[in-house]
């Protein structure tokens, strides 16, 4: 197994395309997006089904990549999270086919 980095970005849906462009520009080969159902932050609970504007929806973006590529994305993502609602974490994971990432 080979070590890679797993980036997990929880961000408002409206900023998803911007986050995607950043990941793509950093050379990450792929990412997968999951839509969140509800959440809590800043003392407030929200939930998807109950907001007709859907403006407050959050998504979870997962991207597996090499340390360099993930790091390359981080500065820009940091800036994005200056403007948009969200949090980010990175973990070390093992993969079987390092050439994919």
């Amino acid at each position, binding site marked *: 197994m080979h070590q890679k980095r797993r980036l997990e970005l929880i961000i408002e849906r*409206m900023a998803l395309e*911007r986050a995607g462009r950043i990941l793509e520009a950093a050379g990450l080969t792929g990412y997968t997006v999951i839509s969140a159902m509800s959440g809590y932050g800043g003392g407030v609970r929200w939930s998807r089904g*109950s907001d*007709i504007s*859907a*403006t*407050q929806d959050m998504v979870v973006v997962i991207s597996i990549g090499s340390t360099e590529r993930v790091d390359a994305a981080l500065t*820009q993502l940091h800036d994005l999270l200056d403007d948009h609602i969200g949090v980010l974490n990175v973990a070390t994971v093992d993969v079987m086919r390092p050439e994919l990432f």
Partner: protein
Amino acid sequence: MDLSLALSTILSPVVLFFVLGLGAALARSEMSIPEAFAKGLAIYLMMSIGLKGGVEMSHSAITSQVAMVFGAGLILSFTLPLLAFAFLRLSSKMDRIDAAAAAAHYGSISVVTFVAATQAVKYSGLESSGYLVAVAAVMETPAIITALLLAQRGGAGTKAPVAGSERGELMREVFLNASVVVLVGSLAIGWITGEAGMTRIAPFFVDPFQGVLCLFLLDMGLSAGRGLRRGWRQLDAGAVSFGIYMPLVSAGLAALFALGIGMPAGDAALLITLAASASYIAVPAAMRLALPKAQPSVYLTLSLGITFPFNLTFGLPIYIYLAELVSR
């Protein structure tokens, strides 16, 4: 003002289902209408009013009065945010960017309020014209431009663009969002296929319309109630009162336009309602892209939690009354 008319508007199934949803959400019921289902109904409602409007437009020529109404709609959508912004800065503690974002909502329109108004107008015995659907579509976006200018004057303009943003993404969101595409598209299709095309699809797009609206407004009530429960702490008394007096101010201005143009009562009622209504889908989305630092809970609570319920219950009878006044 005809009280029995007001009462019959407020006690219509459509409004009562809204109140049911509002009450359930405020009482902390967990019930919900699935998002996918409600969104599907929203598209149905827009297709339906687009088609009906288009068919009606295929009957009648575009007169100079019609052109003037479009002009009035444009002017209202461009200028109402200026008024709203000034009021918010004076009467509430909102900062410039929140006030600009909220102001955009009041220049734009709410399709559902418009739909409810067409029904209320119809059951008041008045007639309205199909082209007002097109006016609604036209009024959706100008307010956004005004709001961006207002926000920029405070220095937001000098800032670098948001990371990852792309030229054109805002334009796409604003001009190609679902409500613009479906409204304008259905209007065109109704206009092209005319009465003949409509008869085939009327059992789906015309007959069940009122009932679908009930179901949809139950969901709107839940949404408004939950928005209120979550967001009311974000609003001071000044902001809350703005959510109620602003639609009345807008309605007053629109009534003057209607008077000037000499619109018939039903059409006037719809123009007034458009001016008085505030967006809670298209504009919030645009604001998240253009002014991400503005707090969504502020503008959404105001528009969906305060103004929408007010318009639907007390507003509509007032606007119809106003329309009858200015069209005598």
